[in-house]
């Protein structure tokens, strides 16, 4: 337990020390929120869909979480290249626990980022009917973070070089984000797009947050939570499986 904690602590400390990373990763979601939120707001309203900023915030929070989760895998490759990884790999502790410590650390950072974006969005005009719903929403954020940091760790364990990782991530992250309903409602889509959004795990995360924060959900929060939890368990296991196979 203490070993998992110290690996978690390492991850969090490193993040807090890199101010540039912190600032850089908050800029993009705010840009999206302001440009899209205000830019498309009137069209959205005229179509009878209500306030677009309120609708968009869960989507942007989800976007920020999935983007931040990417770092988890990058850090595996980074640590391997700079050599620190082998120091942990020969330690008397199971590889699964090493992976768990790293993943929980990265997920903490991703959740923190998501939360900061949500708080900042209040300045952009975001309003939620019941402020206390932020607590269950945080649990959803933790689930999304764990899910995507595991995916990221899994891919980082399979690849050796950063270019390859970035190529894979570009192929994965942008579609996951754009096809998740982060930017648009999931009802009334062309059927092929509906089919794609249904298999995108991020759809369920964002849908759950929307259900909790602004009271409108497409799949139903219950189903969202079941899907998210199941996927998180599966990918944590898969992440651990591939991390175990890492050789130096």
């Amino acid at each position: 337990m203490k070993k998992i904690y110290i690996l978690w602590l390492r991850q969090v400390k490193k993040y807090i020390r890199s101010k540039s990373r912190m600032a850089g990763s908050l800029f993009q979601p705010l840009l999206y929120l302001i440009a899209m939120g205000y830019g498309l707001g009137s069209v959205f309203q005229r179509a009878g869909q209500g306030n677009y900023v309120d609708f968009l915030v869960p989507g942007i929070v989800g976007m920020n979480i999935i983007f931040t989760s990417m770092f988890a895998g990058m850090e595996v490759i980074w640590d391997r290249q700079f050599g620190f990884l082998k120091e942990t790999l020969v330690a008397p502790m199971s590889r699964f626990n090493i992976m768990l410590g790293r993943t929980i650390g990265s997920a903490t950072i991703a959740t923190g980022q998501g939360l900061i974006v949500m708080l900042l969005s209040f300045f952009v005009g975001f309003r939620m009917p019941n402020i206390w719903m932020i607590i269950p929403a945080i649990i959803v954020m933790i689930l999304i973070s764990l899910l995507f940091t595991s995916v990221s760790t899994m891919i980082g364990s399979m690849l050796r070089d950063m270019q390859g990782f970035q190529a894979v991530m570009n192929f994965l992250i942008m579609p996951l984000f754009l096809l998740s309903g982060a930017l648009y409602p999931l009802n009334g889509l062309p059927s092929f797009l509906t089919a794609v959004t249904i298999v995108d795990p991020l759809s369920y995360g964002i849908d759950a947050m929307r259900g909790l924060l602004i009271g409108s959900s497409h799949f139903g929060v219950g189903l969202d939570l079941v899907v998210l939890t199941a996927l998180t368990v599966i990918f944590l296991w898969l992440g651990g499986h591939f991390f175990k196979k890492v050789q130096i």
Partner: protein
Amino acid sequence: MITVQNLSKKFGEFTAVDGISFDVKDGEIFAFLGPNGAGKSTTIKILTTLLQPTGGDVRINGHDPVHHPSEVRRSFGIVFQDPSLDDDLTALENMELHGVLYDVPDDVRKRRIPELLKLVDLHERKDDLVKEFSGGMRRRLEIARGFLHHPKIIFLDEPTLGLDPQTRNHMWTYLKELNKNEGTTIFFTTHYMEEADRAAERIAVIDHGKIIAIGRSEDLKKQTNTASLEDAFLALTGKTIREEGGGGLDHMRQMRTLWRGGRR
């Protein structure tokens, strides 16, 4: 303590370790010598569960690294040849992290960390980030970290590379004490022949993935009819190059060896 039988490792078509066998006894100080690219680090990586062998059988403290890596990992400590510190943490944080990961009890950690940091003369710099350290200082920190827990076996892969003579001395004094007081088995590689001569009870020489000589320093000298270990080493490893043809090929082999060494 360490038993290796017919161990081999291939990287694709290339054979880095070619059917080596040797034993290291409990409490022995054992040197593993060889030119660049001979296969020393590859062997150590296999013994320490970082790499899967292609063939052969290994026992570390009675356990097999392939099938029982956790038991093996509980038996040894290692100082790597390549960097292995976290640059974004301080010297102290690197030590603490290691101590926790390697089950060093709190009170021992509190006592030993300052002791070791003083040993390598880094105590004043303990709160500085490792990325601000010079190459030699990083090396010293890695040595101190390697001594934080006291395992049955310590692997040291070119530990004294880039170290000043003072630290080298401190390091060997500490290692010899460990060896004497706790019966720690020490397995090390080095390119400094006098270091191997002074410290090691037995020496194995590996070249092109094969062990070409093994024994006490005197044995190797006698075998090659030379006066110093350096000459014995050159006689052993130099000969194989000369035998396989001279001139251009010889030069190419050397270039290849150099290039391979650079990639590690």
